């Protein structure tokens, strides 16, 4: 079996022209999304082109430091995106997300290459970088949903938490339900994906491998692997980020400090 048919720039332009439909819908329904759509299109072209160009020399260089640096940049951007998507924020949210994605995303990606796929060396960029990308892309959605839910509940449920604290609850006891609910919310997208995968949708990684000439059964096995890694990374990442964000809403005396939560405009 051969590799995929090479694509030329005109073919990408042809596909991008379909976005005119999105633009027309936005104008017709007065959604005001034209500018956002244009920026998103240009960004995706630029970012993917950059990624494609940079990965070639990285694959050739075979330097673990270079691979590590790229992973750090990916995790940093993912943490930034996760925080930006939350409708409320609290001091220290970015470092919390960074740590959560490093432990959840970075940890599971390394576990996947080193212990499960058993790539030699474990940091082989052809495996580690795409796997980390898949995990981070999905994991940050879970983290941002979980953070949004936990801060919303802490903000809106401050009376209940304050009442429980007044009766001697520890911060953990007073907000325990919040953490559980937030992690559950963060897990929903990946659980939904796992439910419909293979029936309703063929996910990106499997599609790419099939187009690349991998036998479908092998592509399916890789897809299973990545789904399980994403699920684990989302659970770990969401739990860590939610717990750290809840910690920020209490002070050293375990007092609830709702004034530390700020709502984003819009």
């Amino acid at each position, binding site marked *: 079996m051969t590799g995929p048919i090479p694509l030329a720039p005109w073919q990408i332009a042809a596909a991008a022209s379909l976005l005119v439909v999105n633009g027309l819908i936005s104008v017709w329904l007065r959604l005001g999304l034209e500018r956002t759509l244009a920026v998103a299109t240009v960004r995706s072209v630029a970012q993917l082109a950059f990624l494609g160009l940079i990965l070639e020399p990285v694959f050739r260089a075979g330097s673990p430091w270079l691979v590590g640096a790229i992973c750090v940049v990916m995790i940093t951007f993912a943490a930034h995106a996760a925080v930006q998507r939350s409708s409320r924020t609290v001091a220290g949210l970015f470092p919390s997300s960074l740590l959560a994605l490093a432990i959840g995303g970075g940890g599971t990606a390394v576990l996947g290459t080193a212990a499960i796929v058993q790539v030699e060396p474990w940091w082989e960029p052809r495996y580690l970088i795409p796997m980390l990308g898949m995990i981070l892309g999905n994991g940050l959605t879970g983290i941002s949903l979980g953070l949004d839910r936990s801060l919303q509940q802490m903000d809106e449920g401050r009376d209940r938490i304050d009442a429980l604290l*007044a*009766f*001697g609850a520890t911060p953990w*006891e007073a907000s325990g339900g919040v953490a559980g609910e937030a992690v559950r919310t963060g897990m929903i997208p990946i659980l939904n994906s796992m439910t419909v995968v293979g029936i309703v949708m063929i996910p990106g990684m499997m599609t790419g491998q099939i187009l690349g000439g991998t036998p479908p059964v092998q592509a399916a096995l890789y897809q299973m692997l990545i789904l399980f890694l994403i699920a684990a990374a989302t659970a770990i990442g969401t739990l860590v980020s939610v717990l750290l964000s809840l910690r920020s809403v209490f002070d050293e005396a375990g*007092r609830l400090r709702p004034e530390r939560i700020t709502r984003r405009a819009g």
Partner: protein
Amino acid sequence: MRLRATGLRRVVGDRTLWSGLDIEVGRGEVVVVRGPSGSGKTLLLRALAGLDPVEGDLTLDGVPPHTMGWSRWRRRVCYVAQDPPALAGTPEEFVRQVSSLGAQAVAEGATAAVEPMALAATWGLGEEAWTRPWTELSGGERQRAALAIAVATGPEVLLLDEPTSALDPAATDAVEASLQGRALVWVTHSAEQAERLGGRVLELSA
């Protein structure tokens, strides 16, 4: 048992609400806190309860809260809000939640355990109120339910923020009578109630 607060100071924005404030209360004693709206009566009670930050020193039997553990402090020095929030669920569910707190099991020096429903019944709160949602209860019903739950957890000091402001005279008398003998810091706007309660009076100024 003795709650001692010395040199309390609280600044809100650029306004100093109180400074150099001392409070002391022991078993069977009452400190009545009075003052106009905005003088920081609620903030004072919340500060004593360890629910709001404050400058100054707090001790219970000579032990500061950070040594005792803040959750244990709040269990032993319990604050009851003037207008308990209309929480989700029912008072009965809240009682279960409060009694499931791990902390409650080790409430030391606690006064004899009381059943909140039986206690509130003596204040005229019917049993059916406990199974109705908090949101459907009147201010007076919420006030009595919250106070009964607080008393039932067996704190050594009760910090009461106008606990009878929504009650009729008969219920007010019943509440005052049943809380006698406890260590109380009691905020009230009523001069008659302050007189009935006896004890020291702390006047805060606006």
